[in-house]
């Protein structure tokens, strides 16, 4: 007896433990996964410190509609544990799931109920409870965890069901075998898979034909029922595709029937609830569904130790987009639908956010799991920056962007994309071999090598500084009797000083292009002329931000610049000494970007004309350092890093974010008190 009691008690404890918070897992077919490592984040800025920021209560809670919350703890959420969010783009629905750890169920429910503004009915589902917050938002929770599901069932009335939809069981509703018994009874019931839409003018014609079609299946219900367990392909082989003239639409209520749309809405709401129920069940029952962690793309790109990480599957994102669009929008058929949902075989990206002591760092990895995609990505970056272009960069510049891509590989990437698009299109989808031939023909006609010779893919864009230029303006002066006279005055305006330099192997061709406007300048009334080795486009000094723009084509490059220094540098083919770190930074990366924030803020100062904005500018100058980003191939992936340096008296860069919002908010509040000015709200 004692043994039995202990066994029962042990089982109960296991169940109770299961009901508490376990590190949540995203499913392998998720399109987007975002993780917040609560332990790391609250280690940087403790919850007690977050509570001390006035903007959290005064602004953030207010903006979020949490007027009733007095402190962050009173939300009932345990911010020290991991929070997970993921998006699912299924063949018939899009869902966004948020899993949050709870430290106080009662506080959390009080908050939810207050915000919902009405008493919700609560369903108990074994270990957890469920409540509907709206027609498409559902909450499931235990004492230790809450799962919020937003779902949108997409069976628009204007969308005829395709044969794929009719023959495929909705994966959003598919429950793993292990859960069929304890999660939902609906999984064993017949699955409602389509509702015929109202008949449009053109469709009515088809409908007339369908009435005589041998495959027609008539019934009094607008729902076509197919047992879920049966093999879809074999079951519906006789069901014609939606676009086929034999489509079954006789079941549809007449388009004029007033409650047709209401029926659709009710059907969608019912579906959304079923989907939300199943998604919540999956989380709480920790079913044996494949985890995102088992996905190579995820493991390669996401750092589990990052305070915040996000992972995106581009294929599934596109699939979700196209399946949401009306069937014939953009000529797209269902090709990007269910069949295109992948577990990351195509391009995926992982973004990891770190809050270091003196910088905020974002690491992004772009990964192609299959060999062809990986090769494609690698080829795009198969180029090296020319040292001649680096001459235009100088350490006293405000910023620069250096790029080095393989133009030929980029062209080839577009052929692949076009083929994929056309073979999935409504018209050409059934003749994909023709689409293939068209693109091949295009590929033959276009000479990618010639394009690559014209623009090999190396370029730099440099913002040397913001110069000032004098501009006159008209105003009025008044004598002692207030009689006015027009007067001309002068004011200083900012004028960007920049250079864009591109590598070319067809200087002869580009020389012709920059020379052509000279002939038409007089006729077309613009000031463009050839000077000693370069061309100058002169702007209206009174009206345009630039005075002149210079064009130079020299040997291996074409240069567009506002700086005569850069014109001379190009014409003389001169070299400049660039600090080693800058040269290395620009030449070792395919993409390198740097901004001297302090210099930028200092140079835009003349344009800042209110005391409040000046205070904000001063604050940013004291607290924000340089911005830089770089990107290159590393470990077979496109690896990008963006860094924002942080200065000032902050324990770490995460705390800096809170401090910055608090301090800027304080400046704005003070401005409002002093002047009643609300324009910066």
């Amino acid at each position, binding site marked *: 007896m004692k043994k039995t009691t202990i066994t029962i008690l042990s089982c109960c404890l296991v169940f109770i433990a299961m009901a508490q918070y376990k590190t949540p897992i995203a499913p392998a077919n998720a399109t987007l996964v975002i993780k917040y490592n609560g332990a790391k984040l609250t280690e940087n800025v403790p919850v007690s410190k977050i509570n001390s920021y006035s903007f959290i209560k005064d602004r953030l809670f207010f903006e979020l509609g949490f007027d009733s919350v007095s402190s962050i703890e009173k939300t009932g959420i345990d911010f020290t544990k991991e929070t997970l969010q993921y998006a699912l783009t299924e063949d018939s629905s899009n869902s966004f799931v948020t899993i949050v750890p709870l430290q106080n169920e009662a506080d959390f429910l009080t908050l939810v109920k207050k915000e919902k503004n009405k008493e919700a009915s609560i369903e108990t589902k074994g270990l957890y409870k469920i409540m509907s917050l709206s027609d498409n938002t559902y909450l499931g929770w235990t004492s230790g965890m809450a799962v919020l599901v937003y779902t949108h069932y997409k069976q628009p009335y204007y969308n005829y069901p395709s044969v794929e939809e009719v023959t495929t069981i909705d994966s959003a509703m598919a429950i793993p075998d292990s859960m069929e018994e304890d999660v939902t009874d609906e999984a064993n019931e017949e699955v409602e898979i389509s509702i015929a839409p109202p008949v449009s003018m053109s469709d009515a014609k088809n409908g007339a034909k369908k009435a005589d079609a041998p495959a027609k299946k008539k019934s009094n219900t607008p729902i076509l029922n197919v047992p879920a367990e049966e093999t879809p392909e074999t079951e519906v082989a006789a069901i014609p595709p939606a676009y086929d003239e034999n489509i079954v639409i006789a079941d549809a209520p007449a388009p004029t029937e007033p409650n047709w749309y209401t029926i659709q809405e009710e059907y969608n709401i019912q579906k959304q609830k079923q989907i939300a129920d199943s998604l919540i069940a999956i989380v709480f029952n920790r079913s044996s569904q494949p985890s995102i962690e088992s996905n190579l793309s995820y493991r390669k790109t996401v750092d589990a130790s990052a305070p915040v990480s996000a992972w995106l599957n581009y294929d599934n994102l596109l699939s979700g987009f196209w399946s949401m669009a009306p069937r014939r929008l953009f000529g797209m058929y269902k090709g990007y639908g269910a069949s295109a949902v992948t577990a990351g075989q195509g391009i995926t990206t992982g973004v990891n956010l770190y809050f270091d002591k003196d910088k905020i760092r974002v690491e992004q990895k772009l990964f192609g799991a299959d060999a062809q995609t990986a090769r494609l990505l690698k080829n795009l970056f198969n180029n090296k920056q020319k040292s001649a272009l680096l001459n235009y960069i100088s350490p006293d510049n405000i910023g620069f962007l250096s790029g080095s891509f393989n133009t030929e590989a980029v062209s080839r990437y577009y052929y692949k994309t076009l083929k994929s698009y056309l073979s999935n299109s409504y018209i050409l989808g059934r003749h994909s071999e023709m689409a293939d031939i068209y693109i091949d023909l295009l590929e033959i006609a276009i000479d990618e090598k010639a394009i690559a010779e014209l623009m090999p893919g190396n370029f730099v864009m440099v913002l040397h500084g913001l110069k000032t230029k004098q*501009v006159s*303006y*008209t*105003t*009025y002066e*008044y004598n*002692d*009797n*207030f009689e*006015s006279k027009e007067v001309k005055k002068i*004011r200083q*305006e900012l004028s960007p000083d920049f250079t864009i330099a591109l590598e070319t192997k067809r200087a002869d061709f580009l020389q012709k292009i920059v020379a052509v406007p000279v002939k038409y300048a007089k006729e077309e009334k613009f000031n463009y002329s050839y000077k000693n080795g370069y061309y100058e486009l002169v702007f*209206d000094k*009174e*009206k*345009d*931000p630039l005075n002149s723009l210079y064009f130079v084509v020299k040997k291996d490059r074409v240069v567009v610049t506002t700086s005569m220094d850069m014109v001379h540098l190009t014409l003389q083919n001169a070299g400049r000494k660039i600090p080693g770190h800058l040269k290395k930074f620009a030449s070792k990366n395919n993409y390198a970007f740097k901004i001297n924030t302090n210099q930028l803020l200092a140079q835009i100062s003349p344009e800042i*004309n*209110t005391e409040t904005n000046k205070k904000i500018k001063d604050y940013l100058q004291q607290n924000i350092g340089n911005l830089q980003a770089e990107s290159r191939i590393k470990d077979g992936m496109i690896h990008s890093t963006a860094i924002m340096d942080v200065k000032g008296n902050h324990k770490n860069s995460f705390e800096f974010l809170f401090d910055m919002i608090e301090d800027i908010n304080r400046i704005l509040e003070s401005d409002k008190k002093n*002047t*009643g*000015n*609300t*324009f*910066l*709200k």
Partner: protein
Amino acid sequence: MIRSIYVAALLSVAVLLTGCFEIVEKVDLKDNGAGMFQFTVNMSKSKTKIASILKMKTVNGRPVPTKAEITQKVKEIESSLKSCTGISNVASTLDMENYIATIKCSFDKMESLNQAARKIAAIQKIKPSDVKDNYAYQAGAKIFSRLANFSLKAEYNKLSSADKEVFNGATYTGIVRFERPILSASNKGSKLSSDKKAVMLNANVLDIITNKKSIANTISLAK
């Protein structure tokens, strides 16, 4: 009139997304209540920004009017004024080099000017009934009133933060000139001319919009 023109400024100047413009309102009033009115919007100080913006189709989600549309709008106002009873000598100038627009007219009495304002308001799709009188003159008592029965705060609050910035640095100058010497002016911001026959009021447009400053003024003249 000023309300309708202000609303036009709120909507169209906001489209042009530029600060530093000035508005000048002038009224020359004779003893018999007739006079001359002139209204000027001077965006010359922001002409480089306007020139750039006019090359675009939309800014901040709003359509940018073409030069032809701006000219057309000024002409519409001019022809509307011409058709108003008691309004004469209507003339407008539009300097698209310096972006200065001026419209002026003569009026036989203040009420004609108030009615003209309602007509202009209609062009701006503002209900004429929403436009209150802007001026009043009691010829017997020799009292002129610049009324400010408008509030632009609601329209202003509807603008985005970027659009609100447009009014930062914008100024208003109002000058009222009489044939007789001025005895008193109720607005504390009033400046009196040396010949004591004109009053000038200066304010930031933003202060007027947010009701921090009023341009209302009651001026008593010597009898």
